[in-house]
């Protein structure tokens, strides 16, 4: 009998407790759904119960969820999913032929012709082939091998899997992973969970959040004192900053990765979300191959994409993929092994991804509607991106870089010293204090910049540009007014 039991198992010590649980899990935080969101949900509940507030609804501009903010799904995608789910509909003449043809093809590839059967763990073969073709087309013909494609449960799942694969060593040899500051907190959460070493490199706010090679060099050299830097993560277009890296910058990063023997993780989930004049999405893979064999045969890379963003906004499907380049075959075998432990990615997400990489073509019946819807979504986002930058920059104390791409704005806010002191008194970081107050006074939920990382002494918030244009205008106005009020109150 255990000691615990000898004390009588009615004693209050739990079998699974803080002392014997996974110590890494205790350290993990994820700002996007953190304390401020909890408070927002609470306020929503209070509103429902009839409590009087200076506002009638909470606007959750904290999470990149397009549909929640009213964006409509793309018709074609949903038609194909409905057909796959209930194949009797294949007889229904309300569905276009191109949707039916794609549904049939997917069902043929499923066990027992059902999306309810397990797929192979790397993902349905014909869908991986479609993904490979999509990548080839996107990258001007540079070959893509379906064996290097792994379908996943959203890009997040693939990102965490690769990080897990690469983390090893103890003490000074522990794997270090370079991540941009500000960053998307999935990365810091995953690194804490894996007990990997997080190596911060700062994006340059004054140069529209661009990457600076000198800064990368500084970060990696400093890190070599206490860990073994092995990975560099880039998000392009960026989250939360929205910057779209120039081709030159991408080449510089690739060169840097080659020199420093770093595995490059390119998170490209916002690849269709590019708005600013003169900005263009360059895939890391394409640039890598165009740089010639010195790089294209040596730099190890994984690129990630998903169904959650771009014009689809289908976060709830958890569809995604990664393409791995130049991975050692034995390492790749290990990757394939981990992936098999998780059985398979959700088949609806795989089917949806297939539509994203294999959309209606100009000669197909659904093409016109599809393009109309797609263009409308992206144009709408572009308009809102411009509007956001414009309005915020009219407010003294708010400095907003152009939202070149992605779905967010990450403006810098000037906070008076008195506010910083008050925050400290209340045990909050200053931008959390600011965001909480905004939430209480205006019912707008943002995420404080501290959740993403920022240079010491600077403060930011991240807001999504997803609310419908008219609502967004109101939100921008209210935040502007709040900021002026706040500044006055604490001066």
């Amino acid at each position, binding site marked *: 009998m*255990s000691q615990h039991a000898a004390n009588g*198992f009615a004693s209050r010590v739990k079998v*699974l407790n803080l002392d014997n649980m996974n110590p890494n899990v205790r350290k993990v935080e*994820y700002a996007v759904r953190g304390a401020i969101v909890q408070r927002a949900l609470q306020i929503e509940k209070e509103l429902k119960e009839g409590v009087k507030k200076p506002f009638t609804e909470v606007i959750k501009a904290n999470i990149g969820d397009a549909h*929640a903010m009213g964006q409509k799904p793309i018709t074609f995608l949903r038609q194909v999913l409905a057909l796959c789910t209930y194949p009797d509909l294949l007889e229904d003449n309300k569905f276009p032929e191109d949707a039916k043809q794609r549904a049939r093809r997917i069902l043929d590839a499923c*066990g027992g012709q059902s999306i309810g059967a397990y797929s192979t763990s790397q993902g349905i073969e014909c869908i991986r082939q479609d993904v490979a073709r999509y990548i080839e087309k996107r990258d001007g013909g540079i070959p893509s091998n379906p064996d290097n494609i792994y379908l996943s449960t959203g890009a997040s799942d693939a990102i965490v899997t690769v990080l897990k694969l690469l983390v090893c060593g103890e003490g000074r040899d522990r794997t270090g992973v370079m991540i941009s500051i500000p960053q998307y907190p999935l990365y810091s959460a995953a690194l804490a969970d894996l007990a990997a070493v997080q190596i911060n490199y700062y994006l340059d706010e004054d140069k529209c959040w661009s990457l600076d090679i000198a800064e990368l060099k500084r970060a990696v050299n400093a890190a070599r004192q206490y860990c073994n830097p092995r990975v560099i993560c880039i998000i392009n277009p960026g989250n939360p900053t929205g910057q779209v890296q120039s081709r030159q910058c991408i080449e510089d990063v690739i060169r840097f990765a080659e020199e420093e023997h770093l595995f490059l993780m390119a998170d490209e989930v916002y690849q269709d979300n590019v708005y600013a004049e003169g900005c263009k999405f360059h895939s890391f893979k394409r640039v890598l191959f165009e740089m010639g064999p010195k790089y294209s045969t040596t730099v190890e890379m994984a690129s990630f994409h998903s169904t959650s963003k771009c014009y689809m906004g289908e976060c709830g499907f958890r569809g995604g993929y990664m393409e791995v380049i130049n991975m050692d075959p034995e390492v790749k075998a290990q990757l394939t*092994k981990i992936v098999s432990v998780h059985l398979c990615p959700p088949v609806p997400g795989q089917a949806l991804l297939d539509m994203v990489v294999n959309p209606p073509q100009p000669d197909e019946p659904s093409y016109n509607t599809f393009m109309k819807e797609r263009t409308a979504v992206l144009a709408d986002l572009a308009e809102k991106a411009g509007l956001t930058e414009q309005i915020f920059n009219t407010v003294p104390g708010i400095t907003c870089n152009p939202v070149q791409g992605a779905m967010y704005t990450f403006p810098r806010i000037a906070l008076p010293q008195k506010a910083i002191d008050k925050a400290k008194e209340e045990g909050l970081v200053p931008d959390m204090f600011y965001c909480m107050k905004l939430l209480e006074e205006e019912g707008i939920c943002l995420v404080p910049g501290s959740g993403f990382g920022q240079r010491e002494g600077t403060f930011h918030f991240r807001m999504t540009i997803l609310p419908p244009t008219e609502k967004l205008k109101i939100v921008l106005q209210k935040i502007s007014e709040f900021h002026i009020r706040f500044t006055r109150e604490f001066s």
Partner: protein
Amino acid sequence: MSSVREVNPTVRRIRAPTSLQSLAARITEEIKQGGQKPFRQVIDVSSGDPHRAGMAPISFARQVLAVCFYPELLKDERFPLDVKQRAQQLLGVCRGGSVGSYSLTSCGIPYVLKSVAEFITGRDGGVRSHPEDIIISNGSQKSLKMILHLMASGEGKTQTGVLTPMPCPHTLPALLDDNGLTLVPYQLMEDRGWAVDLDELHRALKNARELCEPRAIYISNPGNPTGHVQDRKTIEEVIRFAATESLVLLADEVYQDSVYGLEKEFNSYKRVLFDMGKEYSETVELISFHSLSNALMGECGLRGGYQEVINMDPAVKTHLKDMQAPSSPAVIQQLALEVMVNAPAPGDPSYETYSQEILHSQRTLSQNAQRACEFLNDLPGMNCQPAMGGIFLYPCLNLPPKVLNEAKMLGVEPDVLYCQRLLEEEGVCLGAGCENGQEDPNYHIRLCVLAPPATLEEILARLSSFQLRLLDTFP
């Protein structure tokens, strides 16, 4: 270039899958390319995948999901009123009325959590289940992974251990490896229909304490792959054991709807726990798992499941619930779970069809299990314990020495070699007992018997042909 030496040691230690799945895929591809085989197509019943085997999905569920994907279908006359009403209700609890939005909370959509809690309460004769104790994930494999990850600590002798039944679900050993936990086997008693034996639990635990820090005991009831259904007495014994020995109970109850043995019934661990009084019900830490990958729904590919967490330390529970924050569970599968736990009621337009489909599935399973068990027991060199529930049969192989020698020479497990040859010669893909954790000299094969009866007959015919040939060749 990164070498395999620089791969995470935990990952390297994950045991590799057997070659059977990839062989099946290769042969299927060869047939597609026009290759000649002694059979027309590969029949794969190695996983608990009824749809793959040819069983149909539940119409009501698929209709509701189709409408949720494409709400235009609300105007379609082909769908009965209750389908439309349910779809509307479920779309109403999705943000923006779309299944494409994230779940509001990372444990699952509150409305679905509530439905699940109500289902459990009803199932357990009124023993309350609370939505805040439920966590939805992308499949029970993921649910289990979260708990295992939560418990993982230490190394070598201080590494967290999990008492694991032998045989266990074939997806479990690698999952334990993946999360850095020690698998501590406890043998199920084959000659008693794979029952749990308390003495064996004690023996296993004592042994475990030398090797690691055992912190949990995993139960599969109804048993995967054994088909054993635990009686109340056994469940009470196991609960008492867990309480006395300070173990967390992990109860995999995915096949709770598939009990067909005479005079057998499913008792949930939770219900029995609460019936045992406060001394146990307020202290024993229990996590129960259920999923869409069960027999009746068979929606393995959708990846949806939940866990109910009882008596966990509140601070630890908060960490558990936060684990999915960066990546909340997919929405359509949550809606499918809601349909699973909240079926059409008598009087609803879909009720007739729904109950017929359920009945058909249950009958097929029961008849198939009986038919297959008798058939396999009649084959020389094979012995099968009758199953009472679940969807697998798990017969024992008495392999001739020449097969064992060939296996040794080739460096494969004998049961894997058996399955390989069966696949190559007859196009039937079964599972090998070593995948379920069993070691020599216990050789078994695993087959899912929830399939259209004609398919089962085909499988049995091919298996019989192979077995007889094998024994002829290797007397």
